[in-house]
Each structure stands twice: as C-alpha cells, then as structure tokens.
C-alpha cells in the first residue's frame, strides 16, 4: 500500500517543519474532507480498499487494545480512546527534555462508503497499529456475467 504513495521527496524531514508552520500560520486553505483533522492528529490514519473490504489503519502506539473504542454509526466510523502520559507527575528529580508524544484523549472519525456491511467488522491491534477491516456488501462486489 505504501509503494504507490511513496514520493522521493523527504516527507519525514519536512513533516516536522510543516507541523510547526501549520501551528504558526494555520493549515493552508485546501479543501479537505469535512471530518478530516489537521495534519499531525493522533492517531495517524491510512485508508485503503479492496473489492471485498475497506481497511482502516490507525497508527496508535502504546495503547491497551481493550481501551480503544471503535464504533460505526450511520456510516461514520469513530476511533477513540485515551493514551496515558509517560511523564512523571511532580518528581523534581526528573528533567523532561522532549515531550513530543501525544497524551490524553483522542478521537478520529472516518466516513465509510455506502456499500459497507456494519455487521462484519474486524479489528486487530499489532505493533501499535489498529487495523479495522469493514466488509463490503456482496451486492457491491464486481460480478462476472456469463454471456449466453
């Protein structure tokens, strides 16, 4: 899934810079989906589809899978939960030099296509990536019609 998206430009190096610029100047006026969040939102999402399913990948490391809520309501899938902070409370003996990792409550929503079957959803969590696979209805699958 990545190969087609990978560009030779240095996304990684510019990603941080872009985040900082976005914080300063706001996100440029490009049209985006009504439910999309600003870049850098937690968790990052990748979405793909196959003829039989819609696949959503949420890059949400360090979360207890039992505490991730995935709901589908009227064609909108919501992924929400909370990530605990790694920072010590008021321990004066600990100095914090970098605190870039997300902590706190998160919530992201994805509009699903109309042909999905909300009763056939599978969610798995592995290496910090939540994968939600939503089946598409049989009727939506491309069908081969035999010519008599």
């Amino acid at each position, binding site marked *: 899934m990545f190969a087609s998206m990978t560009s030779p430009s240095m996304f*990684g190096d510019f990603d941080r810079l872009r985040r900082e610029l976005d914080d300063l100047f706001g996100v440029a006026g490009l049209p985006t989906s009504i439910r999309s969040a600003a870049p850098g939102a937690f968790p990052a999402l990748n979405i793909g589809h196959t003829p039989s399913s819609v696949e959503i990948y949420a890059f949400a490391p360090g979360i207890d899978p039992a505490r991730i809520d995935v709901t589908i309501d009227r064609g909108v899938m919501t992924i929400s939960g909370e990530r605990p902070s790694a920072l010590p409370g008021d321990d004066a003996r600990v100095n914090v030099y970098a605190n870039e990792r997300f902590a706190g409550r998160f919530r992201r929503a994805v509009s699903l296509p109309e042909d999905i079957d909300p009763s056939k959803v599978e969610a798995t969590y592995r290496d910090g990536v939540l994968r939600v696979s939503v089946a598409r209805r049989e009727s939506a699958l491309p069908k081969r019609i035999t010519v008599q």
Partner: protein
Amino acid sequence: MNDTMVAERQENRQDAGRSEGQAQSRQPQPRGREQPAMTPRVDVLEDGTGITLLADLPGVARDALEIHVEGDSLTIEGQVSTATPEAMEATYAEVRVPRFRRMFTLSRELDGSRIEAQLKDGVLRLRIPKQEHAQPRRVQVKVS
C-alpha cells in the same frame, strides 16, 4: 540486508564501548542510499542515573528495528509493516513513508555500551545509563 551488514553493525556496537578517540578514528561507514523516513515523536526524560527515551514507532516489529550506536551518535531506525491485503488500493494516507529514522548525539557522561531497549505495542523505551563516575554519589563524612 545481508550478513556482512549485520557483522558490521555488531562491530560498531562494540566500538561504542571503547574509548571515544578510537571510535572517531574509524572512517565513517557509507550507509548506502539514505531512504526517506519519518521522524518519530519522542519523549526524553533524565534522572540521576540515566536518560529514558520513549519513541513512537507504530507498525515497527522487533526484528524490523535497528538501534545503532557509533561513537557518540545514536540512530533509531525502523521499517513499518502492516498486514495489507494484496488487492488493496490506498485511498488516503497520512503515513506515506514506511520508515522511521532519528539520530541523537549522546553526551560524554552517557554509557552507549549499556543501552537497554524494549519495544512494546509500537513504543520503544531506551534506557541510556550514565557512566559510573557521572552518577550522583553521596559522600560519607567520617568522624575523626
């Protein structure tokens, strides 16, 4: 990845434990074509005995993670892999580059040869201890 590269990495790891002068006199290894990579977000905490570094590396399995210490430089690099159905077409992607990389410079009082690493649910926890002599010590005052 071939065997030569693995051997070379182990050699470098040992180097980190030797004196700094020796490590620096080595020719810098050509690391090949640098591939584009994302910068993982980190938390860095320091206490009396060392530094704890937490890095978000979602989608990086343990065998796809490389932690490399050479002289005073620490490199974390990981390949992102997600179980993807073969016929899948990507429609939207915020994670576009399947690789994380970030480099840090260790300061002199840190002991690069005794770094401990744990990877759980896509979060790497590195513990970099301070050299014995750099750790805070309580000096006993003897009564004469």
